């Protein structure tokens, strides 16, 4: 049994993942309250929690980027088109026929090619959209001092930020669902908690 286990996610990585998950969920919940979709904490508290989580996540990212480079883990996010078609075919058909997953996780390659693409998109498209608009939003009162108040409108910034939030919510739904596609529905989640992947 133990021979079939590989140590996939290190302690920091797991800490990063789960704290980031918690922060993003909180920001989605509070963000849509600030947007006026519903009332949960009350507007003032929602803004406070949202802002607090944003700063916390920024600090977390600072540590994580440092960690990625010192451990060479950043290479996990280098995109590849190899086997992308196989992955797509697996999720579209194979998964229903109990076909084997064409990708085998190793400590060196944790993410399947689709995952790599998705995470890269998240990092290079979605996060600049959300962080960029979010920081402009946060520093709205300093626009005049920065001399940018003539070029930006809060409405546009809010629009971009909200669009980013919708994309993040869609990612969240797909991400959570895909965690159930391991050899058992909870296998991926267990791995993310313990760090150990049990192979079939």
């Amino acid at each position: 049994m133990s021979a079939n286990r590989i140590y996939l996610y290190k302690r920091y990585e797991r800490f990063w993942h789960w704290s980031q998950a918690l922060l993003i969920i909180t920001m989605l919940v509070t963000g849509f309250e600030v947007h006026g979709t519903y009332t949960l904490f009350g507007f003032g508290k929602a803004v406070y929690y949202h802002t607090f989580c944003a700063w916390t996540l920024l600090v977390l990212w600072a540590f994580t980027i440092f960690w990625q480079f010192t451990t060479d883990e950043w290479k996990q996010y280098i995109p590849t088109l190899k086997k992308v078609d196989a992955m797509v075919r697996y999720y579209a058909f194979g998964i229903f026929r109990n076909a084997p997953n064409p990708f085998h996780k190793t400590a060196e390659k944790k993410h399947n090619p689709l995952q790599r693409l998705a995470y890269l998109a998240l990092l290079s498209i979605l996060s600049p959209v959300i962080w960029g608009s979010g920081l402009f939003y946060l520093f709205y009162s300093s626009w005049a001092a920065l001399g940018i108040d003539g070029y930006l409108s809060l409405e546009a910034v809010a629009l971009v930020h909200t669009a980013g939030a919708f994309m993040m919510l869609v990612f969240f739904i797909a991400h959570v669902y895909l965690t159930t596609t391991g050899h058992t529905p909870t296998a991926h989640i267990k791995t993310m908690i313990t760090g150990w992947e049990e192979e079939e």
Partner: protein
Amino acid sequence: MRLKYILLLAAASALLAMPAAFAQTAKLETIIAPPTQAASQVAVAAKAETASTADHSKFKALQTNFKSGPQVTEACLTCHTEAAKQVQHTKHWTWESVDAKTGQKRGKKNIINNYCTSPISNEKDCMACHAGYGWKDSSFDFAVEKNVDCLICHDTTGTYRKLPGDAGHPVYERVEFPKGSGKFVEPADLKKVAQNIGLPSRSNCGSCHFFGAGGNGAKHGDLDSSLQHPGKYLDVHMDEKGLNFTCVTCHVTEKHEVSGSRYNVAAAVKGPAHLRGKTDASPAACQSCHSDKPHSGRMDILNTHTAKIACQTCHIPEYARNEIGTEASWDWSQATVMGADGKPTTRKDSAGRRAFDSKKGTWVWDSYVIPEYRWFNGDSTYKVIGDKIDPGKTVQINEIGGAPNAADSRIWPMKIHRGKQPYDKVNNYLTVQHTGGEDDTALWHNYDWQKAIGAGMKAAGLPYSGEYAFVSTEMTWPVTHMVAPEHDALSCAQCHSENGRLQNIAGVYMPARDRNRLLDLAGWTLVLLSLAGVLIHGGLRIYTSKKKEQLK
């Protein structure tokens, strides 16, 4: 069968629990029930120990049995040689305010307001609130120093009173006021008053500013006699048992020039709180003590609001917060309407405030008024006597300046006073009417608009066509007094919501009030589609794996 009994029991216990729920509500009500002994009878303030180095009762010049106000002023001026000259430069004396930007001459002397309209031709009555003696018509000499009234602002005895009809002179002889009321006003002992002068108290300023437009609280709404002995709830600064500010604590006065005026409001003060001793352009503004970033800790996000919102918007959630209330409208077109018996009549509203008077028309009052909100940069352009109007539109007595998002503008709480006033149908300007007085042309004596307007226009030196009608008017008053304690400021959601206080304010994007419908529609559609997608995908997986199991 047993199950049925259990269910019945459960239902019965649920019913039994209901009275318990009422018991709780009832408890709540006892908590908020008022004590029968009203503590509203605020203790009369003991005579404040003066910090002055002069005891005026020891001054020789003041040991005279003064017969008139000007006599007292002459005595004052023997020591305070420059005082009258200083006063004569102020609005309190000239009733005129010149706009530094436009050069427009405003002030009571020149404008027609939305209440008693104009003092012109009614000086004898109106000048009860002039800081002077004897302004009874246009012949009044503004250079005579002894006609400056020192006592109306500096009396500390509370016995010095000026009544309509005396052109600014105090009561010299016992007089029934109001006429026919059976109530009498005693003359003040001018010697005693002169010997007991001091810094203006809330009552001094209030003797005019609380009663503007001829009634307690009528004009401003954020100024009325409740501020003589205010509780903390009403004004956190003036709180008699707390900070106990007087008017001049904020309206810092130099050379008798009182700072802070609604003619030119310091609407968007920036920068830090000011040091003591520093010459301050707008000492009466909140920011001069609090700075433009007064919130700290978790509240510091509110500092980002101060570039758009006046302090007053959140910190004066309602004005006229008492039973006195304030006038919401004055309809002059109902004046001269008589009672059923053909005689002049009056009517009061449910709270005992004036609602109708054949002399003056109808009024609507309100208490605890929720302000209307406007962008405001502090400027006001007034309709002065003779300015053309468009009778097809509601006439703005004062057009307030400011634009959405402009650097010099803030969102301000406003009292908008609505009314109907007579205007000259041919010349298209508001008319001046002679209202007060005992003569044949006075509206309140003869109930004849034609004569009253004729006399008023003559006094104002303005042609009158002889045809009048009534036009709708509005006057806008920035609300700035009656600052509530901090925990009573508006909460975020009172503006950040779809039907909040600022629902009609244009030019700013407010989260939770504003959103892009199209983006929301697209976003939620996408979210639902992805949810449906994963559900279908997952369902298929479950279905196919079950089928496989069955095949096995």
